[in-house]
């Protein structure tokens, strides 16, 4: 018999089901083995009292996640109230269009100037045009869009003004009168060729402001 083999009597004894083996050697060997097992068992960590509860909670959570996913893959019957659905759709389309206008392709390519805003250096543009019905400012700061920066009447008759917040930098621009005539600003730092056979006004905005000619 090798060291790992036990008689039936010894096996029952070690399982706690019978008396010690009759054979003295077998009894002594089983006793040593039982003592070693008891010693190892003493070193084992005893599971905490809430182990069962934690295992069950984890199983339930996993089952809940599966149920959530199943809801999406399972077919459902859809009931729509037309009035409510239409109202929701209108609200979302309006919101979507508003956001698109803010960040979409029509956005200016350079840091957007803001009329009388607080970002950048405030620069006032002034133009005398008594006969004009509408005057706007178009330039490299607003993608040459003649509808975003509109002048308003100044305190004097025929004088149009707009104040724009511009980050320091160099800008080319023109005044647009009645949406048709593109006119240079005589107070700009310089007039430069626009590559199309006309001229643009040039203004360099410093961090501390602008002194014009």
């Amino acid at each position: 018999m090798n060291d790992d083999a036990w008689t039936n009597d010894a096996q029952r004894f070690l399982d706690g089901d019978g008396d010690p083996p009759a054979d003295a050697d077998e009894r002594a060997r089983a006793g040593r083995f039982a003592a070693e097992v008891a010693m190892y068992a003493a070193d084992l960590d005893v599971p905490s009292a809430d182990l069962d509860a934690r295992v069950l909670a984890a199983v339930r959570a996993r089952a809940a996640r599966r149920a959530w996913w199943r809801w999406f893959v399972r077919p459902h019957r859809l009931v729509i109230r037309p009035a409510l659905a239409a109202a929701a759709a209108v609200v979302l389309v309006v919101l979507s269009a508003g956001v698109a206008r803010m960040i979409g392709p029509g956005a200016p390519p350079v840091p957007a100037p803001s009329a009388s805003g607080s970002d950048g250096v405030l620069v006032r543009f002034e133009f005398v045009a008594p006969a004009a019905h509408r005057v706007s400012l178009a330039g490299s700061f607003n993608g040459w869009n003649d509808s975003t920066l509109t002048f308003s009447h100044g305190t004097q008759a025929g004088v149009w003004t707009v104040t724009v917040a511009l980050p320091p930098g160099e800008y080319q621009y023109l005044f647009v009168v009645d949406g048709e005539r593109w006119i240079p600003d005589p107070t700009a730092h310089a007039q430069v060729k626009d590559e199309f056979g006309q001229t643009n006004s040039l203004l360099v905005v410093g961090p501390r402001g602008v002194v014009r000619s």
Partner: protein
Amino acid sequence: MRSLLVVCGLVLGLGPGPAVAQDRDVRRELAARGAPSAFIGPVGMLVDRARLEGLPAAPLADKALEGWAKRVPPDRVAGALEQMRMRLVEARAIAVQAGVTDPPGVMVAAGAEALGRGLGADEIGTLIRSARTPEQGAIGLQVAASLAAQGLARNAAVAAVRHAYERDGGQDLFELPSALADLSGQGVSMADVAQRIMRGGGLPIPPMAGRGSGRPGNVPPGPGGRAGPKSGRRR
């Protein structure tokens, strides 16, 4: 309530939705402004070509938008863009020759603008070599080109920028055109200004735009002025 949520989901998921942030697309910008395909096609191809060549596309896109806004004929816009593209190529070569192995787009664009305003390759190279950083070099090029456009001799414009590089690390570069306008407004001739600069004096920053003057830059010019010389001068 469930139907409301479902409709919201459908609209958000299937509707056009807002455009996501992306590289600038001159075709879309022109289309949004109502430009026809006959205008957009040639312009888009030129911008694409520049992009493929590693050139900054923004100056070309800006010029295309400007041309459309001014209702310039498409062939004329395409011609102007091609000229700009060639200047961008030349400006990049000058920057590389000046020691900037991979010049940033802003520097290439500023160099091309300077070439367009008459600055020579040697002057542009000097400004790039004198700058402490590529970004400072780009601003220096812009400002030198502006000073030249204001009527200052080119060598004086370059000297003024180099003086500003050394004087305060280039912090006042964007103030130089206002400084020149201020001197001009006082009746000082461009020749006298150039002489002063070439003697090493640089361009004096006017007191109202200088240090210790609070934040006058955020104050627009006072009311009562009229368009014309000095009308927009800050008070």
